């Protein structure tokens, strides 16, 4: 779940106003500085959070950092909302408050407050697609809000003869470097996750012995893996680092082989099992005197065939479970290594 958090961080970064160097009109400068101070706190929390994700800190620590960030944004919004107008002008303040409110909703994943969830739901195949679509729409709205803040900042500065200087401190520079790293990671993660999720649906159906769902999801998995393999073929490594791409490809190749070669064995087993159970019930319903030698021979042959099918099924299951676990661990390790390597260190 690291990915979706990082996306929100990037959106906030876009909204952060440039530092300023007040030239005249100290009071207007103080006004802008007050807003800038709140953004400074947000930026520091973003960096703490980004760093926690990149260094593979525990899930609880990352979640705590995320909550701190949300709290900081909320408090900043309240503080700025309490600021009076400046010479009768509330537009700049209100634009900033509105943007921070959107940030707050996006960070809290309260998409229903930003997006028409009914429409999103109708256009989506499942809850995960709905979530991704809602997030995409929310981020678009956030981008537009950020642009409005930038524009109003410019207008306010111009109106009060303030020159804005784009000077980035160390944290801003590091956040700027971290951006493309997370963009790359998110791109691969989304295509990885689509295959991962589709396999999960197929496994769920197998557990329920819902042959209808197994076959449908198996065929869907084959399609989505083929699409993903094409996308990965055109994806370049990140600054020469192809570890994520390779790890993703290995996993997707595994899913495709699983769907094409192994799942049919499992499905076959369930069909054979059902037939065997029916055969057994038919023979059991005959009294000893009614059973012919042919019945006995047929049944014994069926038992042997069924036992062979059971052994094959168990062998396939074990192989798949082992490989799946191994690949998942590899993927998680590769993600951690990638982020640790490319996201600038703290200090």
């Amino acid at each position, binding site marked *: 779940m690291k990915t979706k958090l990082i996306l929100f961080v990037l959106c906030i970064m876009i909204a952060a106003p440039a530092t300023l160097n007040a030239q005249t009109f100290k009071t207007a400068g103080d006004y802008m500085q007050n807003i800038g101070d709140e953004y400074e706190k947000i930026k520091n929390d973003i960096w703490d959070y980004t760093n926690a994700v990149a260094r593979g800190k525990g899930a609880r620590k990352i979640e705590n950092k995320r909550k701190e960030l949300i709290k900081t944004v909320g408090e900043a919004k309240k503080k700025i909302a309490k600021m009076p107008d400046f010479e009768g002008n509330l537009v700049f303040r209100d634009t900033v408050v509105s943007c921070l409110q959107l940030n707050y909703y996006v960070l809290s994943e309260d998409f229903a407050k930003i997006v028409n969830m009914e429409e999103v*739901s*109708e*256009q989506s*195949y499942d809850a995960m697609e709905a979530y991704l679509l809602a997030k995409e729409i929310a981020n678009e709205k956030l981008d537009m809000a950020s642009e409005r803040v930038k524009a109003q900042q410019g207008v306010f500065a111009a109106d009060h003869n303030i020159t804005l200087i784009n000077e980035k401190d160390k944290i801003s520079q590091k956040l700027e470097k971290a951006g493309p790293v997370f963009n790359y990671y998110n791109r691969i993660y989304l295509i990885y996750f689509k295959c991962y999720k*589709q396999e999960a*649906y197929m496994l769920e*159906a197998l557990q*329920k*012995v*819902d*042959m*209808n*769902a197994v*076959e*449908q*999801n*198996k*065929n*869907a*998995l084959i*399609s989505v893996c083929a699409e993903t393999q094409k996308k990965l073929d055109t994806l370049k490594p990140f600054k020469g680092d192809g570890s994520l791409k390779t790890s993703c490809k290995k996993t997707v190749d595994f899913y495709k082989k699983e769907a094409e070669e192994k799942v049919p064995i499992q*499905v076959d087993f369930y*069909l054979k099992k*059902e*037939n065997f159970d*029916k*055969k057994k*019930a*038919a*023979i*059991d*319903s005959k009294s000893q005197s009614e059973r012919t030698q*042919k*019945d006995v021979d*047929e*049944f014994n042959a*069926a038992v042997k065939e069924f036992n062979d099918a059971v052994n094959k099924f168990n062998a396939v299951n074990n192989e798949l479970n082992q490989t799946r676990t191994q690949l998942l661990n590899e993927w998680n390790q590769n993600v951690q290594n990638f982020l640790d390597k490319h996201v600038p260190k703290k200090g």
Partner: protein
Amino acid sequence: WQKYEAEARTQAARIARQQIRKWKVEKEDFEKKLSDIYLNSLASAFDPHSAYFASEDKESFLSNLSTSAFSYGFYVKESDEGSMLVSILTPGGPAWRSGEIHSGDKVISIQKEGKTETDFSSLGIEEVYEQLMPGNEKYMDVTLISSNDIKKTIRLKKEKLKVEENILQGYLLEGSRKAGYIALPDFFVQEGSNWMLGCANEVAKEILKLKKENIEGIILDLRYNGGGSLKEAIDLAGLFINEGPMMMSTERNQKPHLIKDLNRGTLYDGPLVIMINNYTASAAEVLSMILKDYNRAVIIGTQSYGKATGQNISPLDLSIDPVAYKTDPQNKSLTKFVKITNATLFSVKGVTYQKKGITPDIVLLDINNTQQSYESQYPNALSPDSLNKKLLYTPCPNLPLKELAENSNKRVEQSWRFRRVKEISDSLQKAGKIKTVPIEWKSFTKWNKNADEVMDQIDSLLNNKEASFKVNNNRFAQDLISVDDYLKEIIDAEIKNIRNDIYIEEAYKTLIDLIQITTKK
């Protein structure tokens, strides 16, 4: 006529006494019977599908939608002398396992737990069927006389047995092309299934078995399918459709509810023909509607029934805890239920087939329903509505329906059987308009003889000896019938019916056309 008059008078008197005897019961039972009739009339006054159920009626209704139902495991038939004889015993069932009941035994009476004895000597076959239907009792004592004149009473405990009508089987139709054929009697659910799996899963398994035989197309027969579980209909549509919205439903004072395919991907994406007729209703119409909207199947047959409403069954007593009910369905306090129409169904285009039915792409005259019955004939049936909402969906490419219909029409025109079907159908329709029956003996026997002759002609017309395909089992079924004689009997009878059916023949030929046109070979 004098020869038959005395016997006919005795028979008529027996029937009249049976009718009276039905009402000559204890006061409590009489009042219950009367209130049941009144409450059911009240429910059905709202619309034809709302109903009142006493618990045994509910059990009977639900068993028709299940793959298993309570039964004592034997059937009876009426002999020429009016005796009730045991005809079939369900293998492995309670009667079978008792070892005391055999085909040909004469059933004298039954006595259910907590009830008085019911003498079968004065009952007609319909009443006997009614009496043998399990109710809330746990057991029934059956008194019979065996074929070697021994009178005995056997206690049978009721058990859940397979409902034979709801057992699915996929067959191979092998002619110039190899096709799969599956008849789906209704949209049943599987009781005892933890994951609410039902007929969609069963059809999926049969298709998987047929695919192993390298079929080139499938015929799914929904004739006489009166509906059932809507969830099963959606799941079944999902087998053939990759993903997308399936349909919408509306309930009072609520926004339209969108129903989607829950599983991405398809199980079968090859040529598909669906057979429907006037008795295809409700969930079966939903399936046909979805496959039609998506250009996924060719629909062949006659206009379907036209029921696009959904019903719910709930206890009449709203204070009943549904959880407690589920864990103890035998609770005697839960005896009254009501089936209420609570939803109307719409296609992805916002259109309903309520009171209209699904129009087939290829129309075949159906000799079996000259006495057609449609939803639209009920004066209190809900009127069709429309929904001002369109959904985004991606249908399959258009099917070559015009060409397929032209080919079918040519074959039908050239077929002496279908020509004869039309002639008989026309004359039956004419006869149906005449509301009088002669009572003068000679005229009546002539009238009755004509009717019998027409039925014989229909039977022979529908006995297609020139079928262009052989009907075979898939390898799984073949394996099973090698040890299961009872199943073999059922399957052999079914194979014969399929081969004789001129409508399946025409569906098969349409499927071949579809395969040839779409694959260009």
